């Protein structure tokens, strides 16, 4: 591997000239054709660039918000494959499938290639100068409070520039929106521990009880957690950690649990309190007020309320008592209810009672540059923006890194409200559902051709700034990076302050160099510091640990009784966040569409998961098309029957059902966001994603599900293929 200690600008130039004459080799079985192909030929080149040998450059993955370090293999000016950056403490050289598909986001044939201005129903290509001038004009023509900026989670220098721009406008309306984000858990953590994102140490735990946290699949920082999980399963001493997953719909993590407990939806808090009660009874020291608060949660009552057998509750309590430290995690299945905050608080309380705080739940580090610290998105932001739009308070709307038209439930009427906004600017990679509604669409560079910095919300150790750098020359001259656009917009407002920066790159470099002391480069000259930072891909920050509270207190904790039956809408709908689809932003990457869902092995479509009992009751078999109707709407999809789901629940994956975006995403599956009911968490006002009740009826059709699994299903038919044994028989410490 060759590191990049060189003049960055020169490198880009080299690529430019080289890239222009590189013929694509490796395709097809062509025969000897002397004199037809071109030889890779450079004007100038660096010593380390050798034709046919890949050069690796470090950058940061932008496929989700986890901020893994990546290492792009570049050959003859083209990025071919992404590997994990071994120097990144988040992913230590490893990656997930979603991250691998980053090259397909970059080379995607459906990317927008030039700025488009709406004229009637069509988009007309315009120049960047014209586009930026138009923005200047529109923004100048309205009051500052009527300008709104909607973004996904942002951090780093782009966030700092964005803030400056909004300040320059005098508008404080920055809505940070993430369609699927653990925002209720953040609030509950803040309340219980004093921090929003405590650091979890799965590898130090002997028992993990996860209440619906899909930490191996799609939850917060899955690659990092997967690595911890590997050490948890096979610790240095040979002890094997025990994973118990409690949830209503099996996630990838649930599929890897030693015991997967199907629980009635929404009763996770009750089980947590029941476990505290059982632990107290077994002699674990529990503060008095907590004992008082949980004493009515007897095993029998909890078993009745949650549907988890008394035997398993007892075993789980015994396990937690015997093997310490343990780790209790509250995931999205817990927080998706009107009482989601209470659920999460109850589970945090269990952690505190078990004394895990400080052992497996640790304090994060403070971030030295708050202007670059991540702003975590939530759904409440969209709600607020939507209300403002409905009241005609928004005259100019910018949207970046979010696709609200796709991810908003139908009941929000977001699309209609959006029409009330006279001028909508969307920064986008694809003509997605939101871009289609825009008046001005500005095409962005892909993450592999753009400069940026990122500060992940969940950092494994200390604090760090991840650097995203171009791995190749821009594919299309008509795209720009978000940093460049913001800089250009700022030059309109504050020309004096920003005229010294030719482009975002020069801004970023001087900004980084100016704080090199805090970035561990105090003794280096500017060039050395900058080159080292780029070649590492991550810069360590010095931050102080913050305090974390381990005091268990049941103050204000009220967990409501389980749901009452709803005869009109008897089933709960769980919108599932899958590891590759997430909220649908990556749906146009064909590798992800063709990568089978781990549990159902379905590809290229959405589906309805259903327990055999429920299916039998409704007379449904696999492949039946059913109508799933909530109070807010109805959608149709194929049924997949399996035993990894509670009979009161059905589940549908999110991220499918695009009506625009591109050839691989459009028309694949249905959009489960649309039918979510407007029910909100009582404390935070977040949309309660799991609260929607539905009824299911057969639509009459039946299809053959397209999936990898054959007619034998998951049955091995007595053949020794995937084998399982009891962990007590094995001595892992003897193993290599």
């Amino acid at each position, binding site marked *: 591997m060759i590191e990049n200690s060189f003049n960055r600008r020169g490198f880009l130039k080299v690529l430019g000239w080289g890239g222009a004459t590189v013929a694509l080799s490796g395709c097809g079985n062509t025969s000897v054709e002397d004199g037809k192909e071109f030889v890779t030929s450079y004007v100038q080149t660096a010593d380390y660039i050798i034709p046919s040998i890949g050069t690796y450059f470090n950058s940061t993955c932008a496929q989700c918000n986890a901020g893994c370090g990546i290492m792009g293999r570049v050959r003859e000016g083209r990025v071919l494959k992404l590997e994990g950056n071994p120097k990144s403490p988040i992913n230590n050289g490893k990656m997930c499938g979603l991250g691998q598909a980053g090259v397909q986001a970059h*080379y995607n044939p459906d990317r927008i290639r030039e700025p488009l201005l709406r004229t009637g129903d069509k988009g007309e290509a315009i120049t960047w100068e014209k586009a930026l001038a138009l923005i200047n004009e529109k923004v100048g023509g309205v009051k500052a409070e009527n300008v709104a900026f909607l973004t996904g989670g942002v951090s780093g220098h782009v966030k700092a520039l964005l803030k400056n721009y909004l300040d320059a406008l005098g508008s404080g309306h920055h809505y940070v929106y993430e369609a699927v984000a653990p925002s209720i858990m953040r609030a509950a953590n803040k309340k219980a521990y004093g921090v929003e994102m405590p650091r979890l140490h799965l590898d130090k735990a002997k028992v993990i009880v996860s209440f619906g946290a899909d930490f191996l699949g799609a939850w917060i920082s899955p690659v990092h957690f997967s690595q911890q999980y590997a050490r948890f399963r096979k610790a240095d001493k040979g002890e094997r950690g025990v994973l118990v997953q409690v949830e209503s719909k099996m996630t990838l993590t649930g*599929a890897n649990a030693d015991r997967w407990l199907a629980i009635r939806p929404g009763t996770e808090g009750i089980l947590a309190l029941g476990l505290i009660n059982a632990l107290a009874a077994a002699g674990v020291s529990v503060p008095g007020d907590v004992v008082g608060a949980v004493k009515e949660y007897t095993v029998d009552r909890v078993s009745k309320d949650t549907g988890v057998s008394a035997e*398993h509750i007892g075993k789980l309590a015994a396990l937690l008592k015997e093997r310490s430290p343990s780790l209790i995690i509250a995931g999205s299945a817990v927080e998706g209810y009107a009482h989601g905050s209470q659920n999460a608080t109850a589970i945090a309380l269990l952690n505190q009672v078990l004394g895990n705080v400080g052992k497996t739940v640790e304090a994060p580090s403070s971030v030295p540059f708050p202007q670059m610290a991540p702003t975590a998105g939530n759904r409440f932001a969209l709600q607020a923006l939507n209300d403002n739009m409905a009241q005609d308070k928004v005259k100019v709307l910018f949207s970046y890194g979010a696709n609200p038209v796709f991810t908003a439930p139908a009941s929000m009427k977001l699309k209609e409200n959006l029409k009330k906004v006279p001028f909508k600017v969307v920064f986008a990679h694809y003509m997605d559902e939101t871009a289609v509604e825009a008046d001005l669409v500005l095409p962005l560079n892909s993450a592999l051709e753009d400069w940026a910095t990122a500060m992940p919300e969940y950092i494994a150790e200390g604090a760090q700034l991840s650097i995203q750098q171009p791995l190749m020359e821009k594919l299309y001259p008509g795209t720009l990076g978000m940093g460049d656009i913001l800089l250009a917009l700022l030059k309109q407002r504050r020309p004096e302050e920003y005229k010294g920066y030719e482009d975002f790159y020069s801004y970023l470099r001087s900004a980084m160099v100016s704080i090199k002391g805090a970035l561990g480069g105090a003794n280096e000259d500017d060039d050395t510091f900058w080159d080292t930072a780029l070649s590492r891909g991550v810069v360590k920050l010095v931050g102080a640990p913050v305090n974390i509270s381990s005091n268990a207190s049941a103050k204000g904790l009220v967990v409501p009784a389980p749901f009452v039956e709803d005869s009109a809408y008897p089933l709960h709908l769980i919108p599932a966040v899958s590891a590759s689809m997430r909220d649908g932003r990556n749906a146009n990457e064909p590798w992800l569409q063709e990568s089978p869902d781990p549990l159902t092995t379905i590809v290229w479509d959405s589906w309805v998961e259903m327990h055999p009992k429920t299916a039998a009751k409704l007379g449904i078999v696999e492949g039946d098309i059913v109508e799933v109707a909530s109070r807010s709407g109805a959608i149709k999809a194929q049924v997949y029957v399996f035993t990894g789901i509670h009979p009161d629940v059905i589940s549908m994956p999110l991220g499918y059902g695009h009506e625009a975006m591109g050839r691989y995403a459009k028309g694949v599956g249905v959009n489960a966001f649309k039918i979510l009911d407007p029910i909100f968490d009582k404390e935070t006002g977040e949309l309660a994603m799991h609260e929607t009740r539905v009824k299911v009826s057969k639509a009459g059709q039946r299809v053959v599900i397209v999936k990898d699994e054959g007619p034998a299903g998951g049955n091995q038919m007595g053949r020794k*293929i995937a084998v399982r044994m009891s962990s007590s028989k094995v001595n892992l410490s003897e193993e290599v």
Partner: protein
Amino acid sequence: MSITNLLENWSDFRQQHPSEDRPHREYKWAMSIDLDACTGCNACSVACYAENNLPVVGKEKFAHGHSHHWIRIERYWDNDGREFADQGAQFLPMLCQQCESAPCETVCPVGATNHTADGLNSQVYNRCVGSRYCNANCPYKARYFNWYDYPTTDNVWPEPMNQQLNPDVTVRGKGVMEKCTFCVQRLTVAKSNARSEGRSVLDGEVQTACQQVCPTGAISFGNLVDPSAKVGKQWKQQQVDLNKDKQAKDVTESAAKLRGYRILEELRTYPSVMYLEQLRESAI
């Protein structure tokens, strides 16, 4: 080659079983996959698409069983009729097992699939005539046929997606069989580098794409001939012998605590991939 040469070297043209007296001398590439660490996340499969120029066939062709995933994740349930799959799933990454006595090699009419001196089961695309006999004889069904001409099929590699193709790996046209190669393009580079320096490839110097990406490190890969290689130590510790079709675990009572096994070993294919059994806690 003249016929005389053919006759003289007949025994080397015959496919042979591995044996103690004909061991691989420098390299024997092998793998071990820890099913207790595998979470079934599919990262390996996507990485393989990226590394080996696998076509995305689309929904319709996938429905007809024309998918290309050299490494596929199989998901098994072990419910025994219980109401819930309450011990989770059993995930199994299945790839070409690079059998030492590969059933596919003996039946190929044109010799397009051969055993290399490194103990790999090679597939030469340009020699393949597409009789598909190798797939018929593969008990693991780990071979994938190019039912269509994907390089010229719409939306498989539309411009500019074709720029992502790995130049070190041939893009296969219609009518040829393909399969996992243990990332032979990486092995060749590593071997060449090592030879320039007058040494053998070191353990960890070369990784397969699936191994490199795996977040839990479930896949180990290396040279069985190298005594310091992790994979060799694993095989040894698990008492799995490349050249046997019954292992200690199958024979002796005391070896029941071992986790290593090879799939469908009784067919005497002598696979180069050892799996480690998944574990489940009995206290809960």
